[in-house]
């Protein structure tokens, strides 16, 4: 095949996959709105997405806050503005670092496991078995996972904010001797509700992206154990790229919110 038609074919394949994804997401959304509501399954997945991600979110949040405090101090100490460290780090956390890093961490843990789990169910015909029992697999398997991620990733984002700020406080106030009063004043001064809400909106969108991509890849898995492996890798990479590119567009959309 010549390079031009090879490119053409891969573009067509991507467009088809994207169309398939949109259709999948739409149908899962509709299925989730219709009864019966799977509360038990929703709670189970919320536990998995949220509670079981706490450790990694706490560790990454803590060290992110601490390292940004060090970096900010290097910059601000040059013109004697160390008091700004808390405000700047808090602003970066709430608006960017927490939603993006939380989503990327949860993607690695949850997006991959959703793809692997549904992929295994697909290749071992468990999804066919559900359908054969007149159960809608989109409603039973996909909708609770999507909803759980949309609820829990923003919650984890808030925890990341708090822990990150604690890490920043420890480094700035306890180690770098930034005055405690000024540290907190600047935070209240810089960060307002819009920043926090905007960060949570981002986190919710990212949660939707990582769960829907993971479920879609799992659901459309073909070809045994190898296929499951491929689906898992693809899910993590595609969702990661979508989270980072989506972040740019979300930031542009949300920007007027904090200006106005």
């Amino acid at each position: 095949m010549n390079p031009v038609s090879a490119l053409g074919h891969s573009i067509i394949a991507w467009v088809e996959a994207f169309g398939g994804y949109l259709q999948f997401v739409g149908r899962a959304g509709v299925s989730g709105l219709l009864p019966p509501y799977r509360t038990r399954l929703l709670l189970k997945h919320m536990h998995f997405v949220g509670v079981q991600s706490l450790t990694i979110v706490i560790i990454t949040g803590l060290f992110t806050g601490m390292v940004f405090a060090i970096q900010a101090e290097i910059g601000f100490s040059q013109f004697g503005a160390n008091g700004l460290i808390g405000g700047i780090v808090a602003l970066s956390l709430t608006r960017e670092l927490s939603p993006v890093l939380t989503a990327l961490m949860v993607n690695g843990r949850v997006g991959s496991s959703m793809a692997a789990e549904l992929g295994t169910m697909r290749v071992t015909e468990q999804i066919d078995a559900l359908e054969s029992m007149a159960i809608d697999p989109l409603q039973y398997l996909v909708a609770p996972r999507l909803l759980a991620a949309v609820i829990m990733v923003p919650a984890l984002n808030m925890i990341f904010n708090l822990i990150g700020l604690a890490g920043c406080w420890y480094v700035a106030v306890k180690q770098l001797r930034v005055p405690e009063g000024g540290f907190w004043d600047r935070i209240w001064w810089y960060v307002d509700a819009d920043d926090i809400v905007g960060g949570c909106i981002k986190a919710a969108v990212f949660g939707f992206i990582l769960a829907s991509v993971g479920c879609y890849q799992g659901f459309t898995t073909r070809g045994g154990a190898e296929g499951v492996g491929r689906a898992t890798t693809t899910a993590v990479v595609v969702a990661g790229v979508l989270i980072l590119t989506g972040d740019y567009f979300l930031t542009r959309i949300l920007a007027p919110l904090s200006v106005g």
Partner: protein
Amino acid sequence: MRATDEVAAAPGIHVQGIKKSFGTQVVLDGVDLEVPRGHITVVIGRSGTGKSVLLKHVMGLLRPDAGTIRVGDDDLATLGPRALRQVRFRFGMVFQHAALFDSMDVYENVAFPLREHGFKTAAGQRKMREPEIKARVEEMLGAVGLTGVGAKGVSELSGGMRKRVGLARALVRDPEFLLYDEPTTGLDPIMTAQIDNLIRGTQDRNPGITSLVISHDMAATFRIADHVAMLYEGRVRLYGTPEEFRHTDDPVVRQFVEGRLDGPITV
């Protein structure tokens, strides 16, 4: 060719001219099959000839490229998702590799259809209470020779045990149409005979139900079948009674039935 004996009054499953390809691979190339109500029809054929694909068409899990499938009075192609679900309510399917839910234990697997849909009665569906579910699940596990394994996880089971749990799960709601995909492959001869008895017994106790069994075990086929169809190169090569299969002149069918290496089918 049609079976010569009586055909039950109510329609069973009727497959006409279905074709199915995956990419460039033609799997089904115009399959016609009559599965009369009140009987056991066995589809035989070599591995990879599309027997499982055929069964998935009957349940509407796959859509044919061409042809029609009628289940009772319903043409599957004309049904929306909701109506298709209503049709599936009437089915029980045993998957070739059992397809048990590995997030649940054995008991939960068998109880699952009852929890989801209740039990059917003359008046329609009825919710079941936990003691009723327990009694029914234990009855079914007993029927497949697995009393007392309810608490085991799916991964702890042997292949044969999985198959039998799959069978119990398929039968638990007393479905009207039963589809078995190689229910005895991989089981020892005694267990095979027990499962064959179960299939035959279920059919004989419920004259209104319809069984479609996929098999490549000729002895078992002759034990349980009312009608046999042989799938070969994407089509039904021969449809008839077990007697007709025993005495056919068709060299392809003879080779398969007798399990010989020499003949028109090349390995």
